């Protein structure tokens, strides 16, 4: 029996059908041996591949114009420059490689924005594994470029028609596939969610963001940042860049992660405030995805965590302008860190995110993912937050996938800094 703790305080656990439990035991064992103990040089191979195939380390770039605008030193951790255009590859490559070490023959994954699906499809092609991706129908329509990328990389994309056709439904559907094929298939979960050991394992594959950020901030600025800001859907880019700053965490597995006075680094998880933080109980709809800010404890997709749910415990439909944040749950580790007041949950609404999307594009020449735009919007909206003078924002992904959606969403609203968005007629 594996020894790893399956919980983060009251959160986490393994709430899955019995059919999956042996696979989860097997995965826990593989996680301990290969990831935590580098058996057979697994982590060495991972680091080599994420460097050569992935393009790590990603730069930590000073954003000169934003720095001037906010009168602080704003640095951008450029995960958008990772292969595939988002942080997602760290985890996807790690898990597909692990599946290979475990002797699995087939990869499945769910995706919201399509970035995780794309990263998984790329990793699977790179490591020569067959791959199937589940994606909500609504997200297929919002993120077509990524659907094409997955297909071009050889993955099969299965649209999911249940519910609102977003990430929540895609995860449920992937679990159903896994329950049928568990003997030869590995489910590459796309964030720090799901049953243990996924949340800890996914964090460990993304921890490299945090390792680099610590080193780069010291080299380039001479010290650790005053605050780190990242958007939170499930929370994988969030925990990726927070991991080595959380300090003194009893479940921390990184050696020497606590060698500085990290408590001075403020950590902000920016959620999607959607169109409102209020809930339509009657219709079971939360017009936001702010489960850290407004959710309550419950069990979804294998873990106890903070959720958007009604008083019966039925899961709400969530909303965000960005598919990758559009999820009613959040990683259990983040839920715990929020309860511990180590991480501050904040949120910004759809309009602010769109405004930030245009701002970064115009002022820095970087088109961010709509997910990332939430983190950037926080700099603008939260003028009295104690961000300090040296701020790192995790640019979790690039916005190419979002051009169509951003154009459409912008056209429907009054976004003050939007360029002319009409399509040219002949």
């Amino acid at each position, binding site marked *: 029996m594996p020894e790893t703790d399956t919980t983060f305080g009251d959160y986490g656990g393994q*709430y899955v059908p*019995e*059919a999956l439990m042996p696979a989860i035991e097997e995965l826990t064992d593989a996680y301990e041996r290969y990831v935590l103990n580098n058996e057979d040089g697994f982590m060495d191979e991972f680091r080599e591949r994420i460097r050569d195939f992935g393009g790590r380390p990603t730069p930590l770039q000073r954003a000169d114009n934003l720095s001037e605008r906010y009168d602080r030193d704003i640095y951008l951790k450029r995960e958008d420059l990772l292969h595939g255009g988002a942080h997602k590859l760290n985890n996807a490559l790690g898990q597909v490689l692990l599946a290979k070490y475990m002797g699995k023959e087939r990869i499945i994954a769910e995706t919201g924005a399509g970035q995780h699906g794309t990263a998984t499809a790329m990793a699977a092609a790179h490591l020569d594994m067959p791959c199937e991706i589940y994606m909500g129908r609504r997200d297929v329509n919002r993120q077509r470029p990524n659907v094409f990328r997955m297909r071009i990389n050889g993955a099969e994309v299965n649209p999911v028609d249940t519910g609102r056709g977003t990430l929540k439904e895609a995860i449920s559907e992937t679990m*159903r596939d896994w*329950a049928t094929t568990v003997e030869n298939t590995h489910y590459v979960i796309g964030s720090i969610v799901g049953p243990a050991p996924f949340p800890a394992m996914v964090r460990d594959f993304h921890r490299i963001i945090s390792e680099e950020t610590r080193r780069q901030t010291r080299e380039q600025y001479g010290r650790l940042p005053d605050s780190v800001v990242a958007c939170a859907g499930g929370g994988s880019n969030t925990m990726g860049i927070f991991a080595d700053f959380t300090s003194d965490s009893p479940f921390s597995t990184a050696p020497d992660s606590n060698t500085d006075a990290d408590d001075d680094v403020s950590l902000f998880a920016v959620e999607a405030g959607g169109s409102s933080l209020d809930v339509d109980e009657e219709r079971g709809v939360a017009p936001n995805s702010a489960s850290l800010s407004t959710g309550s404890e*419950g069990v979804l997709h294998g873990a106890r965590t903070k959720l958007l749910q009604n008083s*019966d*415990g039925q*899961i709400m439909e969530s909303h965000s302008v960005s598919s990758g944040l559009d999820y009613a749950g959040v990683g259990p580790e983040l839920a715990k860190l929020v309860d511990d007041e180590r991480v501050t949950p904040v949120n910004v609404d759809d309009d602010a995110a769109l405004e930030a999307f245009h701002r970064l594009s115009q002022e820095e020449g970087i088109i961010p993912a709509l997910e990332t735009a939430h983190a950037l919007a926080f700099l603008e909206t939260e003028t009295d937050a104690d961000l300090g003078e040296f701020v790192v924002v995790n640019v979790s992904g690039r916005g190419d996938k979002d051009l169509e959606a951003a154009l459409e969403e912008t056209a429907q609203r009054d976004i003050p800094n939007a360029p002319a968005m009409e399509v040219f007629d002949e």
Partner: protein
Amino acid sequence: MSNPAIDAAFADEPAFIPYLAAGDPSYDASLEYVEALARGGADIIELGLPFSEPIAEGSTIQNAIVRSLQGGMTVGRYFEFVTDLDVDVPVVCMTYYNLIYQYGDEPGPEPFVRKAKSVGIDGFVVPDLPAEEADPLREACDEHGLDLVFIVAPTTDDERLDRLVSLSSGYLYVQARLGVTGARDDVSSETTSSLDRLAAYDIPKAVGFGIKTGEHARDIIAGGADGIIVGSALVDIIAEGTEADAPTEETAAELESLCEELKAGALEGAQ
């Protein structure tokens, strides 16, 4: 510890255990349908309390759950439903853990179990609650004298099997094949090997996942099972009736007749 009503269902002959989602497609029609199961020879009824994320269900039951929730089913209505139900067989509540966990003022399963007991529920099947997470619910069930039925999968190894048998009361739910619920056209060979592995354990074994006809029922009982669990094949009848806008009595009669066939098949298998 075991519930006498459920023990009695396995005492003399193979138990026929049909499943329906309460409230599918409406409260009143569903009452009629569940009562039809009893008339058709049900020995235990597994009554689904719909959860919005039913990860262990295939599309048939998933759709039933959507119909039921859209028809206004809530946890409170479910308990009323059980109270209103006029059947003479034990009722096992089949649902997902979050609904059990959320009920009452404090998170945790005890208030739900207490309420379930008060409306006449005899046990639980919770497909997303493996042995690892089951202690709080097991304790609450013991306290109130309800059964907690665990599912044994084809992937369950011997070590886990021992543990599941020791935690399970009432009966074991033997999952006939890997995957999610849904009616199938054949009996899986996994079923036979599961039953062989389980033969030594002194607890009733009820097989579910995929059973559709009297013939399946017969073969599975003949293969050593003590009961059969049938969901999707029955829910299909409701789905068709709903789609065709058929009168409730007509659909109820069809349900009753499939139940009779399944029960007869089970009896035949026992000979």
